[in-house]
């Protein structure tokens, strides 16, 4: 879901796992899965490009909504 959503934006988007600094391209399913981040993991989302702000906001909202799983 993260990779799908991230792919809608033009910006480069990265997700970093704070505990060990591991970074992944948010548009890559493979990359995001490599983070192996269960519930409770502290993540940093970075974006660079013309729609960076909207991209970060959309991803944070998706995570805060619990990935719409409820």
């Amino acid at each position, binding site marked *: 879901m993260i990779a799908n959503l991230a792919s809608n934006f033009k910006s480069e988007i990265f997700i970093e796992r704070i505990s060990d600094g591991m970074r992944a391209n948010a548009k890559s*399913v*493979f990359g995001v*899965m*490599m983070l*192996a981040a*269960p519930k409770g993991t502290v993540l940093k989302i970075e974006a660079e490009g013309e729609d960076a702000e909207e991209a970060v906001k959309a991803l944070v909202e998706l995570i805060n909504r619990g990935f719409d799983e409820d």
Partner: protein
Amino acid sequence: MKTEGYLFGKSIVGGKGEGYVVKLKDVKINGDIFSHLEKISRELKSGDDIISQFVAGLLEDNLFKERLRKVLDLGFDVETSIKLAIKPLIDRLKSENPQFAYRAQEIEEIFSQLGYLSLLNFEGGKNYVFVGETVSVALALKLKKEGFKGCIVKHLKRDSHSALILSNAGIPTIVGIDPENLKEGEYVYLDGDLGIVSREPISSEGEEKQRRGYNFRTKRGEEVEILLNLDFPDDIYWVKRFSTGVGLFRTEYIFFFEEEIERLKNFSDVEPKVIIRAFDVGGDKFGGDRDPLRLLGDMLPKFDRLLDTVKSSKNFHIMIPMISFPEQAKEFYDYVVVKKGIENLGFMVETPMSVRYLEEIQNYAKFLSVGTNDLWSLYTGKSRGSSDIREQVNERFGEVLKEILQKSKVPVSVCGALVSDEEGLKFLLKLGYRSFSVSPSFFVRAVEIVEDFDG
């Protein structure tokens, strides 16, 4: 009605189906793997489940494709390259977090099948039943799309995504049947509720009911008890289906998933009994002076928890395997019967020493059960599973089994794989055994053999 031509498996998806057998022709891909993967990805996207969408996403992922291209460039074949390309993700998910380990295994299984182009050979316009080793997610979607009327496989996990797709599609599915038993193009009937496959229309429920119960009679009117060998709390399904008891509930699974011990209470009303076998205490490896309870070590609290469950119903019996010496039996008697107040204690007879000391061992038991698998293995030095089960049908092993029967003063049953074999069961009946525990897939046939027995 005879069920000799029936094949018995386990229900994964209920319902009835019939059609011509179609088998998979696996062709190894060595051409343009990327266009093959794109095709699979498109098929997966037509599915409505999350895992299909997720795998499709992975297949289209540039990072995955880049890794795959690099490995292919190193000269590996397609199958190996796919496995190597996905390996870092699998390893990471497996090692990083136990929550992800199961998912990782599932992804690994799906990817291990991607190096093959799966060809289903059928004309269309008729009813078809798929027969194979297993069903991948992509293939399950294909069966759904093509309107298959049934699915018969050797392996498939009930909670796998392939099984969920088949269930959503309403395709009756049976697991546990070797595809070698069915030929391409022959017409078969399957009952997904009962887990039965036949070349003739399957009998009505009324006839099926005749094969229910736990006491049956030979032609000469001798009573024979037939119970089931089970592994999982969910296997209560088999007990209800055949209205019989459990002669061997193996505990390997529930000891790994301790919370499952509690679910054994679902069996508390099962008649005539449920014999729960505890774990191997190593009685075959140590002398009689060793303390088997101490050998349990960290397992002791789990054993106690199991005993609490056993105590909750008069139908529950506890059985200790791998006992060799009377001292070991006494120690368990003191712990289980005297200290815990559980009367239904029994032992497995599955080591040569336990046969030798049977008269003394049984002083501490309410019942005995012969474990033919280990007994045969320990007598002959052959490893379990490496030899044909019918090798056990011979005079010398027969003498050992007869000795056990002659020495036994408490009820004795047999629960090894030999019982779930036609020749094996006839052999045991001839030796004089009258109480058995069989695998569920053999239950109906076992009843027929007993009712036909005229010895």
